[in-house]
Each structure stands twice: as C-alpha cells, then as structure tokens.
C-alpha cells in the first residue's frame, strides 16, 4: 500500500559539481557532464556572530541546504516542521573529541561537546530561523535519506502542515575515514506540503517494495549514489529533473526498499 499524496514545493541540492538545483538538473538530464568538484559553502549569516564562528562544515551545509529548499518553496522557515538526517552528524567535531579523549589531557571543549549531538544542526536551525515547531534528527546508516523522506512525509500527513527535510552528509578525517569513506559533503533539501500550493512541482506517494533499487547510468553520478547516503536520492532527483511522471525505487534497508511515485 502507498501513502496518501504529498506535494513537493521546494527542492535543493548542494554537492560536488552540483552547486545548485539548476546545474544538478542539467547534469541529471544528461545536458551537461557531471564533474565532481569541491563545494564552497557560505557562512551562516542567519546565525548570531558568536554562533557563526563556531560552526563547521556540517552545520554550514545543513543550513545552506535547508535555506535553499525553503526559498525555492517561497515558504517561511519559522513555520516548518523540520527533519534533519545525516549518517555521521558533524564528523570533524566527532574526530576532534575522540582525539582529545585519547590524549593525556582530556580537556574537552564545552562547545565541541554540545556540537557533538546528532541534532546540533537542527538546534542551530531553530536558533537561526526562530522556528519552534517539531524537529527530528535521525540516522539509518546508508538508508538515511529514505528514512528521512518517510519521516518527513508521515509528519506532513499526520500534522497537515508543511515540513522541510534536510539530508546532509560530511566526511570523517582519518582514521575514521577508512571505516566510513564518504568522498564529499553533500546536502539535499525538500519542502513537502499536505496540499497542492502555487509552489508545488510534483505530487509524491511512498510505498515499501522488495524491488531492486534504481541505479544511475552515469558512472560518476552512480559513484556518488553509492558512497554518500544523501546521494541515494539521485534516482528521484533525476526523475524530478525530467519533469515526467514515473516511479523510482530508492535504496533503503535489506529486504525493504522505498518506491516513490511522482505525478504532476
């Protein structure tokens, strides 16, 4: 069985060689070649200066991804239920804490400690936007994007309110990089709404399936899909870029994949 219909009002992508949705859509349609390149992330101007100085790649990426999706939907961030998903949270911060704890002087920075919670980007989002609505931060290892899409969709259906999904991943430095080799930071944002609005680009329905997950034909994009959890969204983004109705299967968990039906 599938969920009731929900509507995609806003979309954003920030990834290697994919600096915005327009460029990403052209790559996904095959109109321009995909070439991975470092991503430049803006400072989070919405945060107070004291907070802004403290935040690293993970928070910058999550903020930029969320704000771009909200702007695309012409929505008010302060009103949106929000879901933040990431496989590792702030990986640089985690590595730093582990190094300090392994040293003779275990002088943990209080700021680094509170930034170590998985929901730190969600906390900064609330501070930056003034949003007091429900906020969830979650993880499902490689299945994190599909898990977040399900959580956001069911939030929208249950609350009857629009929600923003921010899926982001960053890389660990060594030595944890060898255990979790995510090659580039990448973020995907979506604003989902319970009813069709002037901003709605497509209608979505979700269902579980045992069918195999779709893969990308382009080798570079397929490499991203396989190595960055947020990029498991690429088959859906490709279908959305085509502007056509259809159905894709996103990689989720063993024996349980996520089918997404896109209609006008």
């Amino acid at each position, binding site marked *: 069985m599938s969920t009731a219909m929900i509507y995609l009002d806003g979309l954003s992508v920030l990834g290697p060689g994919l600096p915005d949705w327009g460029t990403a859509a052209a790559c996904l349609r095959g109109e321009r070649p995909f070439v991975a390149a470092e991503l430049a992330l803006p400072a989070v101007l919405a945060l107070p200066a004291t907070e802004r100085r403290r935040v690293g790649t993970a928070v910058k990426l999550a903020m930029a991804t969320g704000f771009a999706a909200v702007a695309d939907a012409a929505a008010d961030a302060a009103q949106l239920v929000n879901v933040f998903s990431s496989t590792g949270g702030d990986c640089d911060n985690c590595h730093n804490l582990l190094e300090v704890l392994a040293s003779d002087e275990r002088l*943990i920075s209080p700021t680094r400690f509170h930034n170590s919670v998985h929901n730190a980007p969600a906390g900064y989002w609330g501070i930056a936007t003034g949003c007091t609505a429900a906020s969830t931060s979650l993880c*499902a290892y490689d299945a994190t994007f599909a898990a977040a899409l399900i959580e956001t*969709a069911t939030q929208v259906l249950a609350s009857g309110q629009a929600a923003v999904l921010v899926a982001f991943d960053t890389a660990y430095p060594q030595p944890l990089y060898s255990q979790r080799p995510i090659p580039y930071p990448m973020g995907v944002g979506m604003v989902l709404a319970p009813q069709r609005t002037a901003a709605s680009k497509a209608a979505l329905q979700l269902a579980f399936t045992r069918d195999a997950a779709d893969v990308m034909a382009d080798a570079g994009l397929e490499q991203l899909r396989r190595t960055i959890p947020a990029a498991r969204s690429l088959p859906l983004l490709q279908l959305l870029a085509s502007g056509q109705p259809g159905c894709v299967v996103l990689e989720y968990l063993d024996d349980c994949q996520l089918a997404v039906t896109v209609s006008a």
Partner: protein
Amino acid sequence: MQALRLSAYTLTTALGRGQAPHLAALRAQRGGIVKKRWETVEFDVCVGEVAGLDEVRLPATLADYDCRNNRLALLGLQQDGFAAQVQAAIGSYGTDRIGVFMGSSTSGILSTEVAYRQRDPHSGALPPDLHYRETHNAYSVADFVRKYFALSGPAMVVSTACSSSAKVFGTAQRMLAAGLIDAAIVGGVDSLCLTTIYGFSSLQLVSSQPCRPFDAARDGISIGEGAAYVLLERGDLARPGDIILTGVGESSDAYHMSSPHPEGRGAHMAMQQALQMSGLQPADIGYINLHGTATPSNDAAEGAAVLALFGKDTPCSSTKGHTGHTLGAAGGIEAIFSALALREGLLPGGVGTSQTDPALPCNYLLHNVEQPLQHVLSNSFGFGGSNCSLVFSRVDA
C-alpha cells in the same frame, strides 16, 4: 490521534533487569546511582551503571555488533518476555509490517573511544577489530534489534539528545497512521562512555553526588545508562487495564544549544500539544514524570512551564534520582515508569531530593503516593532545544 496500545514493555537500568526490580526500587524509594572510578575516568563520578554488561555475549551471527551499547540492548530485550511478545507480533503481522524506531545519543561510541587510544603509533590506523557501522554509527542499535528479530520493515534511530527515545513514539504513531506498518518496537538504549562523562563535566553540569532533582541545592546530573523497549500496536485492540499512548507533543526551543529557554517556552509547547492531541485538560493529568535532570537551569525552566500550565497541585517527580540521567534512553525508560505508575497506581516519590526548591512550588513528591491513576504525562527535553512530551492513559474497566 489514534491511540496506540503498549502491548509489551520492559526496561533495564542501574536498578536492575526488567520490571520487577524497578517496581521494588520505586516502592522502596531506592536509587541505583553510585560514586566510583569508571573505565579510565581520572576522577570519581556518580553513575547509574547497569551491572553485568561485561559478561553479556551477543549471538555469533551478530558478533560484529559487540559493544557496550548493544550488549545492553540485548540484555534489555531478554527481560519480561519482551522478545516472545515480538515473536507473537511477527506471527500476526509478518516481518515486513513491524517497524524498529530507537532513540540513542551515545550509540556504541565507547568502542571508538577505546580504539582511538589503541591507534597504531606510526600509521595512526585504528585497530582492525573496530566495527564502525555496527557499533559507533548512530543507527547501530536499531540495526541490531532489527537483525536480532530478522525484521524486514522500516527502521531508524532518532538522535535528538535527551528527547530521542520519547520522539520515537511519535514516529511510530505517524507510521501506523499512514498505514505503512501494523506494529512497532520503540525505545532507547544509551550507555556510559567518556564523551558524555567528560563532556557534561566540561559544561559543569555533573553533580559530585547522586543527583537531586528539583532540590534547592541541586547542582547537576548523574549520568546513567539503560535500555527500554515498548511494543506498540493499534489502540482499538486495547482491553480494560491496558496502557495506551494518547498524546505526543514535540517542539523546539529555538533558543540555545545547551541551555533551555529560561521560561520553558519549548517545554510548555510540547506539554500543551500532547494534552491537545490526547483531548485532555491539565486537570486530567494525575502525575507528571518530569524531565527533572537536576541541573539548576533545566529544573527551573521545566518547573516554570509546569506551573504555568498545571498550577501547583499536579503531583510530579523525576525518576532520574533513581536511575541517573540515561540521556538518549531516558524518554523510553520514563515512558515505562509512567506505564508502571498507571498500572500499579503508584506515584513515585523522588530519590535524592530532600528540600524542594521554594522557587519551584510544584507538587513535587518526596514520598510515594498510592492512588489510582488515569492519565500520566512524561517529559523529555534535550540539547539543541528538542522537546517531547507523551501522554499515557489506562483503559477504563
């Protein structure tokens, strides 16, 4: 909302394994927090430690998941016949239709902390027996539970600091309402590690003695560990005497990363929404299991919000004096304390608290009260300003 039945529930903390030692400890107002030298921590610390985790052995097929957190997860699953109840649910619904939504803030990071101490001095490489995916990654405990039962439905870990395992009740409720599942295993597992002991110490939020929630002299938390599980099914299956989830409220403080809004703005919103969803008035709530961490600012913010919404009369207490603050597992553990309170008609008096703060004139229970309960509210508020309140009710005879 459509109410959900708590078909089975179990908890394991410093008070013991399963419901019986917890009820005994509540009745005796006995806490499980002890002062000790833990792992390689260089100072004495008061912790709520679960006994016997070093002896727990994971099934051979799940050997890669071996870490303190998953040992605790397994030990918890084996209490109160919980695993058998899950097997019965699998028989009814099939493996595809049961979700696993767990809350955790620590996951098995202790393993990586130890591994960082054992890095190769030349190459910096981690020891080969570290399994990041199965132990350290936030998802590992839900993955472990899902594999333990060979389930093939949806799963994830919510990691919103100390509200984590309260919020998974909301996830399960929404997933059932959307028709994607028929039942869910929800709960939380968090275990002692250096990150939280040194981290909370750096913020000067750890008490030098067992914590004293809502006490005038409260001076910080005691870190605990624990596992809690609840099997949730549709509420229309509930029979008289059963415990059901009737309300979930979630909000954000939008204020500060590690300090609550001083007036408890987010706490107030979460409690109000939970009441609204359950269709209840404040006067209907017979007992509030407070978040009650025992830090000066957390208790002040929560107390202000409780007073504003409920006034001075509603009985309340924090069970963190019994178990310590089990962080990502606290919401699940306190949900089960709430269910036990409803089932037994037992309003637990707090442990560790002797003189309640006159600035927080709530009806904080210093002694047990035995009286029938119909509705209980449980609060869980976390770093990053993440708040969740749950309402549990007893089905009328």
